[in-house]
């Protein structure tokens, strides 16, 4: 059997019922309450870090839609993240647009870019797609540094963005306001994504993931849904990029290297491929673990990342989702 075939060939991921793609109602309510209450007890820097967790969670979720949903995968998400970040930054700083309004634009531009990149990518599957997107991620910082765009992008120096204040005179610090803003956006995206995957289009994507040839024989427009998945994923990543630029208050070409793409990929694997709530676990992982690793030694974070990735591949091939299932199993036993 050739490994050229699509990614998903091992039974465990596919045979899980589709409803497990999202959390149950009770679990969702608990998570939302926790997320809403968290900043009330945390310091400003921790709030900032949690904001970054939510932002990366959106980006990981986007990758999850692409990989868990349609079975394609991408090592080039950092490119779309960068595109979204620059779109927001340029609109805010050069054209003076309100920060909240820049997000749909960033998402739209990235959707188009992703869709266009998805067109040639249609003919690529598995490793070829990984290769093309890998090249995209490597090339992106170079493109951003080009002197043609320097008037807008600020070249190598990048752009500095002013942080938005809380509107309507709300008594919230900037960090806290941004946190709640990002929380609302990410919840909206999460709900929309769950619904997308449950919809007719989502089922078509999953049919392609499970068996492309069978799906096309059933009348699914394979080309359309594959490119659509690419576009949607890129668009959501673009929104995450825009939010990231606002939160960090700075964009520069070298913030969006292949390392970022690797981090997002790692977040997806840690969270569990195809399990959307895992995105936030994965995002927390990629925000906090490098900090802890650098505590021990600077430059060690790469090795720690790698070792943990190896451990997960061997011990928890389905990431945090596997833990969630185990815990769920205990609960059911307790009830009986």
């Amino acid at each position, binding site marked *: 059997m050739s*490994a050229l075939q699509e990614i998903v060939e091992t039974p465990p991921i596919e045979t899980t019922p589709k409803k497990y793609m999202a959390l149950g109602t009770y679990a969702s309510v608990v998570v939302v309450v926790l997320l809403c209450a968290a900043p009330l007890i945390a310091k400003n820097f921790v709030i900032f870090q949690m904001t970054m967790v939510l932002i990366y969670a959106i980006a990981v979720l986007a990758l999850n839609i692409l*990989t868990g949903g349609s079975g394609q995968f991408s090592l080039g998400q950092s490119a779309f993240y960068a595109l979204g970040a620059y779109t927001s930054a340029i609109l805010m700083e050069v054209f003076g647009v309100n920060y909240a309004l820049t997000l749909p634009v960033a998402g739209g531009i990235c959707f188009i870019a992703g869709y266009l990149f998805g067109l040639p990518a249609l003919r690529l599957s598995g490793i070829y797609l990984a290769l*093309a997107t890998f090249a995209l991620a*490597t090339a992106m910082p170079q493109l951003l540094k080009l002197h043609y765009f320097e008037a807008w992008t600020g070249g190598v120096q990048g752009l500095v963005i002013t942080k938005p204040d809380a509107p309507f005179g709300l008594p919230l610090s900037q960090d806290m306001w941004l946190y709640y803003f990002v929380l609302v956006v990410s919840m909206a995206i999460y709900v929309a994504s769950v619904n997308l995957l449950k919809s007719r289009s989502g089922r078509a994507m999953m049919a392609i993931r499970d068996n492309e040839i069978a799906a096309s024989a059933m009348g699914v427009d394979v080309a359309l849904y594959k490119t659509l998945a690419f576009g949607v994923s890129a668009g959501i990543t673009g929104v995450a990029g825009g939010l990231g630029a606002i939160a960090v208050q700075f964009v520069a070409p070298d913030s969006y290297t292949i390392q970022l793409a690797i981090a997002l990929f790692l977040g997806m694997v840690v969270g569990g491929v195809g399990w959307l709530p895992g995105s936030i676990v994965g995002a927390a992982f990629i925000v906090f673990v490098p900090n802890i690793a650098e505590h021990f030694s600077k430059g060690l974070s790469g090795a720690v990342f790698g*070792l943990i990735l190896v451990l*997960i591949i061997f011990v928890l091939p389905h990431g945090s989702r596997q833990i969630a299932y185990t815990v769920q199993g205990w609960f059911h036993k307790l009830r009986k």
Partner: protein
Amino acid sequence: MELLLNQVLAGIATGAIYACMALAVVMIYQAIDHLNFAQGEMAMFSTFIAWQMLQWGVPYWGAFVLTLALSFAGGIVIERALFKPLGNAPVLTHVAGFIALFAIVNSVAGLTWDFTIKQFPSPFGSSPFLGSQLISTHQAGMIGVTLVLLLLLYFFFQFTRIGLAMRAAAAQPESARLVGINTSWMVALGWGMAAAIGSIAGMLIAPVVFLEPNMMGGVLIYGFAAAVLGGLSSPLGAVIGGFLVGVFENLAGTYIPGVGNELKLPIALALIVTVLVVKPTGLFGRAIVKRV
């Protein structure tokens, strides 16, 4: 005219490096049907080992041969420890494994030898080759070493029992196993050879781009482009692809206005995507028929 000739020759010289990387990529691709994203980092690590030996006073060619042997052993160890257990795991798991390897090797090299740029000596020197101003001896050496390597590989695969067994194991694993070939060790052997070939590429390019943990990032992308251009199933194609990519990169950088040095990586990207779209099997690759 002189500029054109100069650029073509320089392109062939850097193309030789891409050819080596592409050869290493193709070796592993043949063995396990996956692209090794950590190939560049493995080559970088080998080059650091060579540099360390040179620092300890080992003569160049001694260090060269020792590094080849160590890389070969290292490649086998990596295959046995990390990728053999993965076996028939899905592509995603393999990609994750390669990325893990990438991160670990890069980080360990940075920790051990830090991120400052280091000089790496050239065994051929940098004087003009045979008195001609067109090409330096190091560039000529790079081309020469690649051609010798290709020739050796050709003889190895064409006329030795092990080479034949490796080809059989790559082409038809089940049938090869039935006729008594230890396919599992053939894969490990492929990894070892790929690591050794990569280390040659690293040691040849290091005098040009200088030694540091991230030096192979761009080179690997060109290596991929070369492998894709030549066809992932053909070692000869990989080498020709490498030379073509090198020449193309230089000519585009010189003659297309506005490309310059900045756009060279995006060119590799465009090349990969174009080739994959127009002819997915590459120039010398065979089409693989999928059955349902």
